[in-house]
């Protein structure tokens, strides 16, 4: 079978599976719609969280980014996993004990304030829309490249599938579909990684293989890659070029941002008990780590294969994948010296005579994972599998985000703010309608992406870090923190972070250089500073304003003890 036939078959089968699960797990109450009736097994919730968390960015882009950045790519590997330790130790068990449906629920109740609730809702909506647009875009790319369908039709098909199971099943449907999607995506990620590791090093475990010796030459793969990089004028693969402080700040911002993302936090409301919430974060990280420890290996294999395939080779003899990606505009070649060969080199490259060499090849780093199986000439079914895996990653994350959006509108705004007397059935209908509307907006953004999708991802993390994380932590660990402190902390954190990112990304992108940054911290890392400012402002303001009322203090005491989580949601639900 051809690549196209394999892709169509595997994608079709996986979609049929998701729809089947959606029909089997329809939601009948708001509790089932928002938090799957709080009856999800911690292992299943761990898998669902992993699929929810690992987006098109993790599946499609991350190994490519690491492949191009080398050591500097570690910020994503550590940043997007380390946040789970914070979640397990500082957030998940207490939020589960609190027992509400959404993050703004906690903020509003703990700080006895509708203003705090509304600020939290706005942050949740903004973060989730930013994120969901990127997912729909990923769906479109996979469809257009592998199934040779128009990007618009691709996004429309993806929307249809998500619409079906998110609107029908709510969190319950999403959770069990995500379990299936996790299986599809991890299989699709691991199979090519094992193939590549076997081909290049003879070791079937990629996590070990990329530290091993190359089969052909007998030198260590990393040494060979560093050597190639030096020859071609790139920085050594295992060293970075970013400043240490910037690496620290970006890693911290990503970690804290992960722990503050509403679609991740909400997953830990779905398990039956506090101890399940703790355990379930552990399982989630195990499932995430399977992909995140394979990614740097894939990055090294991809980099080596790419350099071997293109360096000083005739352009006319490039394989089929090269020309196919060229038509999507994600690879481009310009023959500056007119020799018909491809010079793919870094900024400091010189030839034997000592004169500088110009780079002639531009490769979008997002295509590395998708192109990898073809670059390495793996069997057709593996290529199809990768497409199905990329779709699973994008759809599962999109669904999780849509649920946060629908809950923010129907629960936090409608039920808790505008129409507290709405009936259970009325709220369920509102939740379905808002999920449906959110799908349409997300699809529109996927087809007509604002040019800055990649830029706003930094925004989503920075904002999640600088808004939610400090007020949730302080709400649990400090009884003294009051309404005034929380609101002023959130506002200062968001304003600072947003202003810094907007200035360097949109207002004055030309100035986005290390010498203009505060302390050399890039816009990607500013969330770490925003978080610190939020903490500081919240604590200082609380100290000079009246302490929280006794109910809020009793709430803190209640969420600190695990016993009683089973009844808790009856009170606040």
């Amino acid at each position: 079978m051809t690549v196209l036939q394999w892709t169509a078959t595997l994608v079709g089968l996986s979609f049929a599976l998701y729809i089947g699960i959606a029909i089997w797990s329809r939601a009948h109450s708001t509790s089932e719609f928002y938090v799957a009736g709080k009856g999800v097994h911690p292992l299943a919730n761990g898998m669902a969280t992993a699929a929810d968390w690992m987006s098109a960015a993790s599946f499609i882009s991350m190994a490519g980014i690491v492949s191009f950045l080398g050591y500097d790519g570690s910020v994503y590997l550590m940043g997007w996993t380390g946040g789970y330790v914070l979640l397990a130790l500082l957030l998940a068990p207490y939020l589960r004990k609190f027992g509400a449906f959404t993050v703004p629920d906690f903020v509003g109740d703990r700080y006895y304030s509708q203003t705090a609730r509304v600020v939290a809702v706005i942050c949740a909506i903004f973060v989730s829309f930013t994120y969901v647009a990127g997912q729909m875009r990923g769906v479109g790319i996979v469809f257009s490249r592998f199934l040779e369908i128009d990007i618009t039709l691709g996004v429309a098909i993806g929307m249809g599938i998500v619409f079906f199971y998110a609107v029908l099943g709510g969190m319950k449907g999403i959770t069990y579909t995500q379990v299936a999607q996790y299986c599809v995506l991890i299989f699709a990620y691991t199979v090519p990684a094992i193939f590549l590791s076997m081909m290049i090093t003879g070791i079937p475990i990629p996590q070990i293989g990329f530290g091993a010796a190359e089969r052909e030459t007998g030198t260590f793969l990393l040494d060979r890659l560093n050597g190639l990089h030096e020859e071609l004028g790139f920085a050594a693969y295992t060293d970075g070029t970013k400043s240490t402080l910037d690496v620290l700040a970006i890693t911290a911002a990503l970690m804290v941002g992960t722990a503050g993302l509403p679609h991740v936090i909400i997953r830990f409301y779905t398990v039956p008990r506090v101890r399940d919430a703790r355990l379930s974060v552990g399982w989630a990280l195990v499932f995430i780590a399977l992909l995140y420890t394979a990614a740097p290996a894939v990055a090294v294999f991809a980099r080596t294969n790419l350099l071997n395939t293109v360096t000083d080779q005739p352009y006319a003899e490039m394989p089929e994948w090269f020309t196919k990606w060229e038509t999507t505009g994600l690879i481009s070649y310009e023959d500056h010296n007119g020799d018909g060969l491809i010079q793919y080199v870094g900024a400091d490259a010189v030839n034997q005579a000592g004169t500088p060499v110009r780079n002639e090849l531009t490769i979008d780093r997002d295509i590395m994972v998708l192109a990898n199986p073809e670059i390495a000439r793996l069997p057709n079914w593996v290529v199809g599998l990768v497409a199905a895996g990329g779709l699973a990653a994008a759809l599962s994350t999109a669904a999780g985000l849509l649920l946060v959006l629908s809950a923010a509108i129907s629960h936090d705004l409608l039920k808790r703010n505008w129409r507290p007397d709405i009936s259970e059935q009325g709220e369920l209908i509102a939740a379905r309608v808002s999920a449906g509307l959110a799908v349409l907006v997300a699809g529109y953004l996927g087809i007509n992406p604002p040019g800055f999708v990649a830029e706003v991802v930094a925004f989503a993390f920075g904002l999640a870090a600088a808004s939610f994380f400090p007020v949730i932590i302080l709400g649990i660990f400090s009884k003294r923190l009051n309404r005034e402190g929380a609101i002023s902390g959130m506002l200062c954190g968001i304003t600072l972070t947003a202003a810094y990112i907007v200035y360097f990304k949109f207002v004055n992108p030309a100035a986005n250089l290390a010498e203009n940054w505060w302390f050399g911290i890039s816009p990607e890392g500013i969330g770490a500073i925003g978080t610190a400012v939020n903490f500081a402002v919240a604590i200082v303001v609380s100290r000079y304003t009246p302490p929280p009322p006794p109910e809020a203090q009793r709430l803190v005491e209640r969420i600190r003890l695990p016993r009683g989580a089973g009844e808790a949601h009856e009170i606040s639900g």
Partner: protein
Amino acid sequence: MNQRAADRDHLAYWRRNLRYVGVLLSIWALASYGAGIVFADALDTIRIPGTGFPLGFWFAQQGAIYVFVVLIFVYVFLMNRLDREFDVDERDEGGAA
């Protein structure tokens, strides 16, 4: 048990919890910000024997993640034991919800 004794107990439970969290988060920071970033260059002079991994690079791209996983499971174990010791663990309430 009267209310005051219960409060004292809960305070002791909370202090132990904070101690566990403090120790585990120190290890978390040492493995990632320490070994993976600040001391990475120094550790890169050491190689993991039999492999091509410079130690700092390995921590940043592999080791830190393994440490994170272990930390969470250690925390789960410690907290379950602590919950039982202070009799604040969940009985089978809600387990079948």
